[in-house]
């Protein structure tokens, strides 16, 4: 399983390049492997096609890559005709709205090869995936991105298994992203253990949300979040060091203040009382144009706090 993984990991190097390039011109990427060393994949320069129909794409693909292939794989083919030993396949993979993948094979496109299938060591075949991402296309014609995959030596070239492999690599790439997100998973190699960690992490996050909402319920007995006060306090706290009196009120919702509050809070909390209430009220009137009755709000808070404590 581990070695299998390594293969897939090294193979999936190219996928981020292709999958991310979904805007702009379509990009076709060829991947060929050095037969002997099997270590450094040779990536052909991606060619971009205009957003035409599939037939145009196929036509240009047939003509132009001829030269590339003869250069690139000359050493591997040992001088044989560029497409001589290859069995070419066309497969379309359409992505529906909900992300389901259905593979339909269109084998009529095997033109120049005829029926020559070489199932021996130097087996290569291509699978084109047509991903319709309608959410990203701003044009009338749906954008088509083709990923060319070559089967490696000794691997099945059935279009089903190739599509399977592509799908598996996509999954493993996403799992790697997840690995970075979930803390403490960098050393884990193996999907099962990784999934366990992910499950634990998601459960703990959900429990945290529950806990925090419970705490918020105790702190705030009437759900009357006096948000303006809270936010202004955050604003003031984060800028305490800079300027005391003149506070710019243009940013009502500075998100950076939230990050800022967590850090300076233990140190600044002592300095809160000396802040004059008049400043606060003045701020509020400027910002929101309402009359703010600080005394009653404070009274409410104090009274309710006592009430909530008795509840618990």
């Amino acid at each position: 399983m581990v070695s299998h993984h390594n293969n897939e990991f090294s193979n999936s190097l190219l996928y981020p390049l292709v999958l991310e390039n979904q805007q702009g011109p379509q990009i076709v990427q060829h991947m060929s492997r050095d037969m002997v060393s099997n270590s450094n994949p040779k990536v052909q320069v991606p060619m971009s096609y205009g957003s035409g129909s599939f037939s145009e794409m196929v036509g240009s693909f047939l003509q132009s890559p001829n030269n590339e292939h003869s250069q690139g794989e000359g050493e591997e083919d040992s001088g044989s005709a560029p497409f001589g030993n290859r069995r070419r396949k066309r497969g379309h993979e359409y992505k529906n709205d909900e992300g389901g993948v259905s593979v339909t094979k269109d084998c009529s496109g095997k033109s120049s090869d005829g029926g020559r299938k070489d199932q021996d060591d130097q087996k290569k075949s291509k699978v084109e995936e047509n991903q319709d991402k309608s959410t990203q296309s701003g044009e009338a014609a749906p954008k088509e991105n083709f990923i060319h995959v070559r089967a490696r030596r000794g691997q099945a070239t059935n279009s089903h298994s190739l599509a399977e492999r592509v799908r598996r690599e996509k999954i493993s790439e996403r799992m790697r992203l997840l690995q970075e997100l979930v803390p403490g998973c960098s050393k884990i190699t193996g999907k099962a253990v990784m999934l366990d960690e992910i499950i634990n992490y998601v459960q703990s996050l959900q429990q945290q949300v529950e806990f925090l909402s419970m705490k918020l319920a105790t702190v705030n007995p009437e759900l009357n979040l006096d948000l303006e006060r809270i936010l202004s306090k955050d604003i003031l706290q984060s800028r305490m060091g800079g300027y005391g009196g003149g506070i710019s009120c243009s940013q009502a919702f500075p998100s950076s203040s939230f990050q800022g509050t967590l850090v300076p809070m233990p140190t600044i909390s002592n300095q809160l009382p000396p802040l004059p209430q008049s400043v606060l009220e003045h701020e509020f009137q400027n910002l929101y144009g309402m009359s703010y009755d600080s005394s009653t709000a404070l009274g409410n808070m104090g009274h309710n706090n006592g009430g909530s404590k008795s509840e618990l």
Partner: protein
Amino acid sequence: MRNQEGSSVKEEFLRKWIRGLRRYSCEKKNMSFLERKKAIKLSADLAMASTRDKTIRWSQALIANAASENVCIGSSSAPKKSSRKKKMMLMRRSRARVKSVKKEMSSARCIAKRLMEKRTRKLKNLLPGGESMEDGCLVEETLDYIQSLRDQIEVMRSLLTASQLIINPS
């Protein structure tokens, strides 16, 4: 993926959350502790879900679930019908594609497969609307869900500490 828009997402989430809470407090006075907690959590979840695209499945499923349980706040009434329809369509299509699981004899591979199935099922149960997702989609949605949960927790925690500070300035 979402690194650039992180702070704006949090802002948006906070705004929507506060709006939802205000509506809740206007409707019902003197809620019990549990009700309050549920209201807070629900509005937070809904606010987080509404910051995500229509293409993200777990958020739509969350909103649909909340709407169907009739505990929804006014802000979510608009996507109610469309998300419900989407959910039905999703369930129908996924049912058509479900493959039958063959019970095989015990061999190493089958055991591994069974373990994976168990875990993916667990993950699907965790994720809102996860039952109708396939593998690749599931992993993607989990990724997004984890990021959203983290943002949500951060904002909630900072709000909590801020309100605690207001009450006890010492």
